[in-house]
């Protein structure tokens, strides 16, 4: 019940922000569109380029949106209140992350393959892309949230986040793209897919538990 109430609060905040919360998705479409348009002579015969472009743009989109994950709550003091309720902090963090994934991860999971189809991908390859994004985007949210929490209240912009987070995104990026490429090449991709699941499981179990103490520490400025 508590999770549901907290989740509704997060979604309400996103909803009230209105068009502002659509910026990451528009950014995603804009960047992917620009790439596919400028690379159209390369992508015509080879879907692998589109897969890589969509995956990398997903990373950048997450960076753009993660920057403000805790910013507003820190600015108005609600993060301090949440942190002091230590028995509810995990619930707060989990719902925040799920809400963030709902407004960026899910749309990207849907829009990524759709853009791929428009760019000429085969439906099988596009659905595999969607599937890897479905596994990959929560992992991306988790890792990004971890580093964002380390930087709460420092008043630093996204470029710092980029330098710290992108190296941590490399494994999920490699495995996600590998699965799609192997699928396009009709090769076996089981082990890569298991790696994706391993990263998903590892990050979604460990990081929400670590975030509470990290956020508490981040109040100390």
């Amino acid at each position, binding site marked *: 019940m508590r999770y549901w109430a907290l989740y509704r609060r997060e979604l309400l905040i996103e909803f009230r922000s209105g068009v502002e919360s659509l910026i990451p998705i528009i950014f995603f479409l804009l960047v992917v569109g620009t790439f596919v348009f400028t690379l159209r002579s390369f992508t015509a015969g080879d879907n692998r380029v589109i897969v890589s472009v969509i995956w990398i743009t997903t990373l950048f989109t997450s960076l753009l949106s993660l920057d403000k994950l805790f910013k507003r709550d820190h600015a108005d003091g609600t993060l301090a209140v949440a942190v002091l309720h230590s028995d509810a902090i995990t619930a707060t963090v989990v719902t925040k992350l799920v809400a963030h994934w709902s407004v960026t991860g899910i749309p990207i999971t849907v829009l990524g393959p759709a853009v791929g189809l428009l760019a000429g991908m085969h439906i099988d390859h596009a659905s595999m892309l969607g599937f890897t994004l479905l596994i990959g985007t929560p992992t991306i949210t988790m*890792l990004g949230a*971890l*580093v964002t929490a*380390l*930087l709460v209240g*420092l008043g*630093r912009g996204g470029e*710092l986040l980029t*330098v*710290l987070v*992108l*190296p*941590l995104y*490399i*494994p999920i990026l*490699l*495995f996600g*793209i*590998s699965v799609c*490429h*192997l699928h396009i*090449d009709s*090769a076996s991709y089981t*082990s*890569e897919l298991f*790696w994706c699941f391993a*990263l998903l499981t590892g990050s979604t179990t460990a990081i929400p538990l*670590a975030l509470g103490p*990290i956020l508490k*520490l*981040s109040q*100390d*400025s």
Partner: protein
Amino acid sequence: MNFIPTWLRRLASPQHFFGDIKLWIAWLYVLGTIGFLVGSVWGLAFVPPERYQGDSFRILFVHAPIAHLVQVIYISIAIAGVVHLVWKLKMADIYMSAAAPIGCWLTVLALVSGMIWGAPTWGTAWVWDARTVSTLILFFLFFGLIVLRRVIPNPTRAAAALSILAIVGTINIFIIKFSVVWFKTLHQPASIELFGDIAIAPVFLAPLFINIASTYVLAAGFILANMRYLVAVRNVSMTWNQEWVQGRKQ
């Protein structure tokens, strides 16, 4: 914690560390420099040329020890991070701050020496394989640690943040390194795998091991010297520190 010898326990106090470690650093520098000179001269002048690569392989004696060392340094930072998170040991925090910039520079050295080696043997200075990628990522991770230390003004918070980033970064590096076999399709295969099918000849081993040991010793010296500096800076207001400064002035 009675199993820890007294001399080591003494080093956990900033004052004793500052006094005691000076002699250590001097010895490490002397030993490391002699060892490195011996190993390098041996490797560069007295070892026969390699069968396939001729003389260009000789950079191995500089490249391989450093490339190996930087990974050990990064992992040691993560271990110090765990120690810091669990036991709140101040020295672990100082170790992390001291080792990160040295690791970063050594990673640059490893990458550059690798490129110098790669250019004549592979025909290209850069190949996207697991080893080069993981070293490059390692450079970014070291850089991240240094930046994170600088942007967080509060030392307690900075130390915790560094610990967490180092631990996650280590997991990251392990995944990248041990997934070599998995992402075959992404990289073009290396033209020559030195440690693969072609086993390393015993004649090359002696200078290589001398250099590996010397780079460890030298790096330990650098890191301890940097730690000594940080200990002094962080305890500027302490009486023992000011007394030392007074002593130097006279």
